[in-house]
């Protein structure tokens, strides 16, 4: 890092790439991150609500799973709803992680040296930086495991694609308790991610005033708790034998 004292207000040597695109800016990327994040939140709420069919028993749950596949039949082709979801999700994840990588690299250049004296965070959303990035990695690993487990059944004993209920029972079997522990760990990371992410997204997209920012923070916390509780109840119920 050198400093040209002769021209202290001159533009930096590395000129910005022309033409400059607003959507490549830090704020533009944050908006992309926020929009893709909100789409994933909507999906995840629907997913959570769907999971609760487990408590209605095998027939009901499998009928719900089949219903998702035949949604809109005979007007719409088989699995059309699922494909819209899948494409939307893959796109959201790609945008979310793409923006994340670009922003993380810029942040790393913007803050290359650490303080010798580290003081504990005292911002409104303390440690969001670490929670979002490292917690995000946990979520990412979990999503891969989750696909291998309950979507493709690679690591699940129940291979019958039509028996979603059986697959859930098998994966959270008391003997496979580490799976439940990992699931709960990932949920904790997701909960923390969303407690910050939901209000952060509103701040990024809508830019509320102080009063509404505080309200958004409360709503974000409530939604995060709801999502975590709604997801956690299923593996807990199976592992502790409430449903089997």
């Amino acid at each position, binding site marked *: *890092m*050198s*400093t040209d*004292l002769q021209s*202290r*207000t001159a*533009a*930096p040597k*590395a*000129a*910005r790439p022309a033409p*400059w695109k*607003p*959507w490549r*800016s*830090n*704020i*533009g*990327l*944050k*908006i992309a991150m926020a929009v893709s994040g909100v789409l994933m939140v909507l999906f995840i709420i629907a997913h959570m609500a769907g999971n609760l069919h487990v408590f209605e028993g095998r027939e009901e749950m499998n009928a719900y799973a089949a219903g998702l596949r035949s949604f809109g039949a005979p007007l719409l082709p088989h699995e059309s709803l699922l494909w819209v979801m899948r494409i939307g999700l893959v796109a959201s994840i790609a945008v979310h992680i793409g923006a994340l990588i670009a*922003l993380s690299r*810029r*942040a790393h*250049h*913007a*803050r*290359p*040296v*650490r*303080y*010798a*004296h*580290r*003081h504990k*965070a*005292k*911002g*409104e*959303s*303390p*440690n*969001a*930086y670490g929670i*979002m990035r490292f917690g995000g990695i946990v979520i990412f690993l979990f999503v891969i495991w989750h696909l291998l487990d309950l979507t493709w059944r690679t690591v699940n004993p129940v291979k019958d694609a039509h028996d979603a209920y059986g697959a859930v029972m098998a994966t959270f079997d008391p003997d496979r308790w580490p799976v439940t522990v990992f699931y709960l760990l990932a949920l904790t990371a997701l909960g923390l991610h969303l407690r*910050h992410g939901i*209000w*952060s997204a509103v*701040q*990024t*997209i*809508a*830019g*509320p*005033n*102080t009063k509404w*920012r505080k309200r958004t923070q409360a709503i974000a916390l409530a939604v995060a708790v709801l999502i975590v509780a709604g997801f956690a109840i299923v593996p807990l119920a199976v592992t502790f034998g409430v449903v089997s």
Partner: protein
Amino acid sequence: MKLSLRIWRQPDADTKGQMVPYEIEGVSEDASFLEMLDVLNEHLIAEGKDPVAFDHDCREGICGACSLVIDGQPHGPQAATTTCQLHMRRYKDGDSIDIEPWRAGAFPVIKDLVVDRSAFDRIIQAGGYISAPTGTAPEAHSVPIPKQDADAAFNAAACIGCGACVAACPNGSGMLFMGAKVSHLSLMPQGQPERRTRVLGMVAEHDASGFGGCTNQGECAAACPKEIGLDVIGKLNRDFRKAAVRAA
């Protein structure tokens, strides 16, 4: 009182620096933090050593020249207070204090605790102004401004451009500073003509100067000596989104 200091010493921009320990005795609790450093420098000069370079000007909390990260906190432990307004009565005999420069890629160290904050000047040059015809000042009541807007604009205008927000941010982002400037001007009728070019220009310069993006963690607002709040970042985001959509 007697204090153990550790101060970042770096001879120039291109030489590696390090934390250097100093002992100082007889510090008055009525002294300001910068006066304490003045005393240390007198000792260093008397010993024929290089005094510690640090930025300061008004020493009354209004110019934004003073900096210093004190025990990991920009402008030190006292809320809503610039380094120059921090007094030694905050400390007690035997305390140790770590003093470092602002840390940000966009604020390279010039010497010791002095950093180059001209990136902020460039952001202002890129749009943080209004174009007005010169001449006698217009009659104050000729352009009425709602009290609420005037107050909000005034609060944002309290930003002294010190850069503590950047120093505190884990992303090295200048969004609080930029948000303060954009809020201040876009709340005023005089700021409307250039409103869109202003926010686009400032954001482009901010990014090109090497500041990071905002994670909404809020370290900036907690460190700001002028209590600029996160709402200005919301306003900046909103103004930017609207301007970018129009420009597209």
